[in-house]
């Protein structure tokens, strides 16, 4: 494999981001910080205009990257360091502008709602056969892993991080296909096998605001970095979106009448579900209905321990294994899975202005390892036990008995071997020129990175005040030294 030039392997990415923030704090970066701030300010003074906003961000990033060599904090840096600084800048600027430019016009918001609704309906009756997925490649249980990756897209603000979620999803699918092809002694899978599964997974995952997320990546990911392999897989999800928009009877090989009937049935089923929540009027299948309304109730409750499971369990754990516990055993047809609830909760949390209050009862959430003393152990252990009990109770309430959960964990962790190290793709996001020679990096570090970043978003939300504050840059930089 071609090595070298991998400036953004997943193991170095958090370091690069940390390094960027570090340099931003240096006095010599003052001028640089001023330019960024005044650029961000120009946005608050004008109405959203996606075309114009995108063009001006792209231009600003390009100019700043060009000017890096002249900036003291980066003077004499290697090409790789400069590229890394470019990534840092993009993430920094876009994290600041996110609220202003993401889904900023009514058309985008409307499209998000329509697409979400269409996928909510489709996911209730679509079958792999409808999309030409051959039986030997069908594996709905393992596809949950790919769905999970895609559902993380709303946990991040930076275009690169969102893109990583898509690439991770694609990578899981590809690994599963590759394994299936080896098992069935078939040809190695190509686009004929890949695209249909991606479409299926996208419909089942149905991440909220998918349309806006894709537009956002397209508009604000630096164009010179959205090339090659990353561009290919990004094109695939755009193409999946386009296919889903246009799905009708013909595109699923069913007659139009049949298709419309299925859509109507799905709509009634969804409406029935919400009606059920109101009057608990159990119909055809009391058992399932009961469970669903419990799901919804759980979702409304203010207990955030489940939603935050990923961010706080960060260090050194295999995140997907943790996730599998929550995904465990839920039939795909189920309207609300634990992961749906988690995703929904996390999204709501990120948009919640009272986030601070919600976290008050979890004193260790924002602690760093160095802050802790031996005396904290007992209290931490208690909190841990409480968390486990609540989680198991919640899982029980969802109809997943603890035994089932364990069995599922064991089973899916063997599946995980198939999808080893999806985090590696982050090097594709970053280093497009080196796509055939992506270096292997530590899974732990990579998932650490993800945890930290999701966590960081939460922290940011709770700890950093208004972004108009001129001190924010510094505050924020000071606030995340634990990123490394």
């Amino acid at each position, binding site marked *: 494999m071609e090595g070298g030039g991998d400036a953004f392997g997943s193991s170095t990415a958090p370091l690069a981001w940390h390094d960027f923030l570090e340099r931003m704090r240096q006095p010599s970066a003052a001028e640089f910080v001023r330019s960024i701030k005044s650029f961000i300010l120009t946005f608050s003074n004008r109405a959203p205009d996606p075309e114009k906003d995108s063009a001006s961000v792209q231009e600003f990033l390009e100019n700043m990257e060009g000017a890096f060599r002249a900036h003291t904090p980066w003077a004499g840096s290697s090409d790789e360091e400069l*590229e890394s600084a470019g990534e840092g800048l993009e993430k920094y600027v876009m994290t600041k502008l996110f609220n202003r430019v993401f889904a900023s016009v009514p058309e985008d918001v409307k499209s998000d709602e329509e697409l979400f609704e269409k996928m909510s309906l489709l996911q209730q009756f679509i079958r792999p056969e409808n999309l030409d997925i051959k039986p030997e490649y069908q594996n709905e249980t393992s596809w949950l892993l790919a769905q999970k990756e895609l559902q993380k897209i709303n946990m991040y603000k930076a275009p690169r991080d969102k893109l990583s979620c898509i690439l991770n999803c694609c990578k899981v699918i*590809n690994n599963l296909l*590759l394994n299936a092809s*080896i098992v069935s002694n078939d*040809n190695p899978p190509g686009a004929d096998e890949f695209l249909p599964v991606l479409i299926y997974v996208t419909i089942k995952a149905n991440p909220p605001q998918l349309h806006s997320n894709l537009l956002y990546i397209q508009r604000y990911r630096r164009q*010179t970095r959205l090339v090659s392999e990353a561009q290919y897989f990004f094109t695939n999800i755009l193409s999946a979106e386009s*296919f889903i928009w246009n799905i009708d009877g013909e595109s699923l090989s069913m007659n139009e009448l049949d298709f419309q009937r299925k859509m109507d049935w799905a709509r009634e089923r969804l409406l029935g579900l919400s009606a059920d929540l109101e009057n608990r009027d159990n119909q055809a299948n009391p058992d399932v209905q009961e469970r669903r309304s419990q799901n919804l109730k759980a979702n409304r409750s203010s207990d955030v321990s489940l939603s935050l499971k990923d961010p706080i369990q960060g260090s050194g754990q295999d995140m997907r294994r943790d996730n599998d516990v929550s995904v465990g055993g839920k039939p795909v047809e189920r309207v609300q899975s634990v992961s749906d609830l988690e995703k929904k909760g996390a999204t709501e949390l990120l948009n919640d202005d009272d986030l601070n209050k919600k976290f008050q009862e979890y004193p260790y959430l924002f602690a760093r390892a160095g802050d802790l003393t031996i005396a904290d152990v007992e209290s931490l252990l208690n909190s841990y036990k409480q968390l486990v009990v609540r989680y198991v109770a919640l899982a029980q309430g969802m109809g997943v008995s603890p035994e089932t959960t364990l069995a599922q964990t064991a089973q899916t962790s063997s599946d995980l071997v198939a999808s080893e190290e999806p985090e*590696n793709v982050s090097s*594709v996001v970053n280093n497009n020129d080196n796509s055939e020679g992506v270096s292997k990096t530590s899974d732990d570090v990579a998932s650490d990175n993800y945890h930290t970043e999701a966590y960081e978003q939460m922290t940011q939300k709770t700890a950093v005040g208004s972004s108009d504050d001129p001190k924010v840059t510094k505050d924020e930089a000071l606030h995340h030294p634990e990123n490394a």
Partner: protein
Amino acid sequence: MGCSSSLPATNAGGGGLNNVNSGNSDIDSKNFRVKLVLLGDSGVGKSCIVLRFVRGQFDPTSKVTVGASFLSQTLALEDSTTVKFEIWDTAGQERYAALAPLYYRGAGAAIVVYDITSPESFNKAQYWVKELQKHGGPDMIMALVGNKADLHENRSVSSQEAQEYAERNSMFFIETSAKTADNINQLFEEIAKRLPRPTSS
């Protein structure tokens, strides 16, 4: 099936073109890269052709890239230039035909593949050729490829017919076998030769 996956992958070193600078389409006048899109009915062996071509580097069990529907391979030419192909595979099933423009947009080359034992796949290939002529870039290099040439006892598309069709449409034509590797390198070398060289230095 079109290509055998049982062959052990040789670990021949890569072409060595590994430019750190990320440019857009070309790198410099000696080393450039090109986006190549693969079109053709499902089952004609599109991905097998590519896997054959990159076999020197491709290990079917390796998990270092996102997946085999995108592969890149660098080819060194006699005039001491190198071409890095970034190969975009497309889904060939009828229901996905409308999505193809997203993939061939901006491509410098296209390979339209059919299966010499399947007249339907040859019809489909002609559909793609028309589509590319209408909507593809004006300078796109197009190749018509009859794959599965090893199955000549089941041939149902004559090479003469395909050759004439290709000539009428100013494409070049070649028959390949991804299974035996026949003509695979020739196919990519020929495309590389025909690519317009970047003028800037």
